[in-house]
């Protein structure tokens, strides 16, 4: 309620509107002057000088996706020992990841708290110096603190509109795990057996955005946090996709207590980047052939599965690779 009477100012800034005062206004015809006059008594309105608009006084570096480069830097610093010493992550074919332009990275997903996502994001960001946005389930956003931290370090809800904007308009790298929680929630005896790749939505997004898909096969994340047993009742109760008993709880629990459930086993993680898949279709179409999408999705799944089996064939030890 303070000072502003911005009529004049507002109308001036609206453009074509003339800002002259009362005389410019239409008056009733003079012949009616003998009747009751309806002419106007101008209301005094102070001519307030238009205040210059304030720029964009941002104080944090949090972008529209909720990512903060400073937080990301901190996360990389904290994760470096785990990446380099604990898991001794090794890449194969990192040069197949484009150094510019958008691309959708697609990988297999494993471990109760999966270590594949941070490994891929950390590796690409340190080696190529490009940010990677991790597309994740809405579950993250529902959980207090978890969702907040996840978005600060580059997590984004896996929504087609978000993916399109990241890939097409901002030409970024986005990482997606089409298996979702079906991949991370599988028991240890099902390790390295890929689940269904969603409904192929990731292929459609890549087609719409006109970017290639880069498949990545990850070996070692399964053993970093194997699920021995799951409680569907408990999961339903707390509203999580699964509540597991992991080997980590048994191994570290007695020493570290509840924190032990968060610590990975020191498995060797190997990542193999496969040849990018370019779709020869026109981008920005509202819909693409369902059969084409399912064929492409199935082919990508097959290639990752074969790469996994090949990598396992050559793996001599879970811990030393």
């Amino acid at each position: 309620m303070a000072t502003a009477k911005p009529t004049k100012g507002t109308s001036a800034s609206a453009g074509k509107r003339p800002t002259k005062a009362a005389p410019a206004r239409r008056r009733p015809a003079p012949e009616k002057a003998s009747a009751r006059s309806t002419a106007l008594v101008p209301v005094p309105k102070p001519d307030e000088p238009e205040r210059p608009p304030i720029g964009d006084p941002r104080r944090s570096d949090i972008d529209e996706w909720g990512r903060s480069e400073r937080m990301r830097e901190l996360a990389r610093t904290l994760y470096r020992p785990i990446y380099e010493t604990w898991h001794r992550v090794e890449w194969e074919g990192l040069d197949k990841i484009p150094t510019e332009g958008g691309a959708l990275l697609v990988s297999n997903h494993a471990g109760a708290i999966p270590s594949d996502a941070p490994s891929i994001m950390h590796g690409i960001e340190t080696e190529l110096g490009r940010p990677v946005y991790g597309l994740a389930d809405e579950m993250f956003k529902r959980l207090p603190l978890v969702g907040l931290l996840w978005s600060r370090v580059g997590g984004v809800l896996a929504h087609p509109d978000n993916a399109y904007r990241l890939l097409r308009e901002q030409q970024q790298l986005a990482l997606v795990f089409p298996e979702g929680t079906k991949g991370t929630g599988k028991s240890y005896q099902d390790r390295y057996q890929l689940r269904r790749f969603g409904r192929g939505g990731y292929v459609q997004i890549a087609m719409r955005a006109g970017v290639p898909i880069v498949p990545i096969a990850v070996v070692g994340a399964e053993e970093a946090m194997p699920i021995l047993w799951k409680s569907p009742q408990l999961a339903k109760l707390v509203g999580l996709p699964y509540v597991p008993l992991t080997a980590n709880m048994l191994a570290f629990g007695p020493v570290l207590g509840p924190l032990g459930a968060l610590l990975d086993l020191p498995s060797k993680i190997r990542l193999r980047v496969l040849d990018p898949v370019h779709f020869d279709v026109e981008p920005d179409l509202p819909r693409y052939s369902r059969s084409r999408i399912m064929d492409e999705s199935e082919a990508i799944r097959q290639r990752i599965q074969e790469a996994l089996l090949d990598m396992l064939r050559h793996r001599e030890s879970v811990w030393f690779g």
Partner: protein
Amino acid sequence: MGKRVLITGLATFWGGRVAQALEADPEVDVIVGLDRYEPTVQLERTEYVRSDESYSILARIVKAARIDTIVHSFLVVDSTMMSSRSIHEINTIGTMNLFAAASAPESPVREVVVKSSTLVYGADPRDPVWFDEQSRRSKPPSSTVERTLLAVEGYVRDFAVDNPHVSVSVLRFSNVLGPDIHTPVSKLLALPVVPAIFGFDPRFQFVHETDVIRAILFALDTGLSGIYNVAGDGLLPWSEVAAICGKRLLPLPPYGTGLLARPLSRLGVIDLPVELLDLLRHGRGADNRRLKAAGFEYRFTSAGAVADFAQSLRLRPVTGGKALYEYQSDVEQFFRHSPAVIRED
């Protein structure tokens, strides 16, 4: 012949300001303002009609004053102001009556601008970061305000389809901030400590009040038709919004927040309606590129609107935030119609 404008909700912040701006426009012949309450800004030639939005009155006004342009700024988007029954009456029933009146046979109406809100998108964890005008909301509405606004937009859509010769524009405004407007969000930011939900730091988007008025005038000037988001550039986290206002956050528990909020609003401590709690958890972004493409230029970004609001917050203790103007019917009548007043022609 100039425009003959009907403004619903003359007493609302928007109605009054738009009327003031239109008064300065020689292209506008007649301005009729309708509201249940008296205008809150000083007006020169706007005719104020105290009335509710019942059908027969609206139909008579539209016909008698040969209204060709309607600015529908009556819609309630702040559910802390009144009961949900009143919101339903004003938003849903009022709009229904207005469009019934405007679509009468041989109706002179050619242009309609509706002031809606990005509340129609809701706020949910499944939301995209940016809503465009075609996006659908992720979950069904849980509050009366959102439900009625959706119903309102339904009536507008029907009207636009049935009357293709009328240009109808729906402006969906994001959270509005500015020196003079009071909204649920601005009330939170005016508190000594700003409520937040622990473990969440949603991204907020704001539009400055002058940009709101300018957008309505822009729609009138250009004869815009269609749906447009009106929101400043950029999203900023709630913690940063509070920081720009120089406030600390008061974290509320993330579970049972609704249970806590209800007694707080009963006691009159803070009003945290459902739609605001959703927003404090998940935030909302509206893509403003469509209106920009139509030629509109924003003067404030989201963060700029917050900074300007923060300046006015510092000023408020000094000026006391009193109303500068009070409508007095007899005085207004005297100045407008009395032969005793000497008018310069």
